[in-house]
């Protein structure tokens, strides 16, 4: 990175005030209240369909609230913002662009060198000219992380970015994400279904249940955190017990997002 960490913009303050989100008759979020301080790392856990991904999409500006308001540094979120970057569960790399061009997506051509710098920071400095198809799952997510960080975001949103990776690669990625977050000072909001991941990374773990915040727990463990430690395991168990307390009454799938319909057909004549 060309800018030193002292020049890095500070993280944003995120306020979620009385937010409702409805899809038809279904109330996904109900009067949700949440404040995240600048530079804080917050993890949201919950069962699938609880509304945690929806909250993330609202913060990104990909969708708009049905009621209430989301404010970033006091300004209401209205559409996509250049200081917010999101990392998706699947890396969503463009398969027809080489690694460096993927990271440089949306950057002015003059700043292409910054892409190489960030790739070096995530440990892929020697794979700049590789096609994404040649990378492993963990490497792809590291490219996606570099692509998010190259814009110096003040708010980084992580939508279960490590869900598809194996256990060892996940631990590696936790260290990488934690290290980059501490260097850059952005505000981070992680959505995950893995309680261990939440405890390993976050300052605060928030549990969403039925569209409402059911638990807001501060994690005061020193960093870097060790998975096997007693205090770590205790916190993990406490959150997990709370998650499992409520029986899985409805296994409703996450709402499908409106998008371009994908036909599996290809016509010749």
């Amino acid at each position: 990175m060309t800018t030193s960490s002292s020049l890095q913009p500070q993280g944003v303050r995120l306020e979620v005030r009385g937010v409702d989100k409805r899809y038809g008759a279904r109330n996904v979020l109900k009067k949700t209240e949440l404040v995240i301080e600048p530079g804080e790392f917050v993890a949201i856990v919950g069962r699938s369909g609880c509304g945690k991904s929806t909250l993330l999409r609202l913060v990104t500006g990909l969708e708009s609230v049905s009621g209430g308001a989301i404010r970033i540094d006091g300004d209401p979120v209205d559409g996509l913002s250049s200081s917010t970057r999101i990392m998706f569960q699947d890396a969503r790399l463009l398969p027809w662009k080489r690694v460096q061009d993927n990271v440089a997506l949306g950057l002015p051509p003059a700043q292409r060198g910054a892409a190489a710098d960030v790739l070096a920071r995530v440990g892929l400095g020697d794979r700049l000219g590789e096609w994404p198809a040649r990378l492993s799952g963990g490497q792809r997510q590291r490219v996606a992380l570099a692509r998010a960080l190259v814009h110096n975001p003040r708010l980084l949103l992580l939508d279960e970015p490590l869900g598809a990776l194996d256990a060892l690669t996940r631990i590696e990625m936790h260290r990488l994400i934690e290290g980059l977050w501490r260097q850059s000072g952005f505000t981070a909001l992680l959505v995950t279904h893995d309680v261990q991941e939440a405890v390993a990374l976050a300052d605060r773990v928030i549990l969403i249940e039925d569209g409402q915040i059911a638990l807001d727990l501060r994690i005061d463990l020193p960093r870097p955190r060790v998975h096997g430690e007693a205090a770590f395991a205790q916190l993990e168990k406490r959150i997990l017990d709370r998650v499992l307390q409520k029986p899985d009454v409805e296994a409703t799938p996450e709402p499908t997002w409106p998008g371009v319909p994908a036909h599996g057909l290809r016509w010749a004549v």
Partner: protein
Amino acid sequence: MTQTIRELQVSPLADAVDLPIEGPLLPAPVVRFARHIAQRLLPWAVPVGLIVLWQIASSQGWLSTRVLPAPLEVVKAAWTLAASGELWTHVKVSAGRALAGLAIGGGLGLLLGLLTGSIKLFETLLDSTIQMVRNIPALALIPLVILWFGIDESAKLFLISVSVFFPIYLNTFHGIRNVDPGLIEMGRTYGLGRWQLYKQIILPGALSSILVGLRFSLGLMWVILIVAETISAQAGIGYLTMNAREFLQTDIVLVGILLYALLGKLADVFAKGLERYWLRWHPGYQA
């Protein structure tokens, strides 16, 4: 000549049969090499054998030259035509027609496919009409085309354009519709504008499908060209063969047929080359 070809053909077969018996006498790499050669040559045994058989049947007089001329006669006819320059003029005229038709029909197909694939209004406006017209075989239009354009160049161009239009249109349309919505969403969150989104995500995502359409179109292009040139022409490969037919020059007719095959193959190789270059990011095209 015939003799040598036959010997070439027979020897690998003989090796393959003999070697297991002689195996212990020969060093292993030699055996493996001979097997490898046999494996490579074996697929050619049937076509070469057939040509040899055909040549023998012709030279022995079992096969009338009015039915099929000897392969050597065909080669000779091709040589004379090439030497006089006649061959190249006809090839040039035919290839020019085919490519002009492809440029017009394919260009329109690409343009309309991009429009209907990207803009909802154009899809509702045009797609169902195009889907209806698609079901009319281009060749069924011949009587109408002759009435409209007579039997000159524009009739041939029209037929080729109409037939190459649909594969490119349909595959462009579906290629654009099949672009992963997740990638488009990602592009939007990374601040790409409409044009950048189109250039960097939608078009490259649709490209493999568009190229499939191009390959179908190239195949169809030659079929329609042959029919169009056979109906009436003053130059071109079709004219060459129809003219030769009147004079019972079966060797020239065969040269024409082989030329069509060669041009078709060339077009396919070209399309494959495009695929290999543009889709080089795809694991299927990487060595």
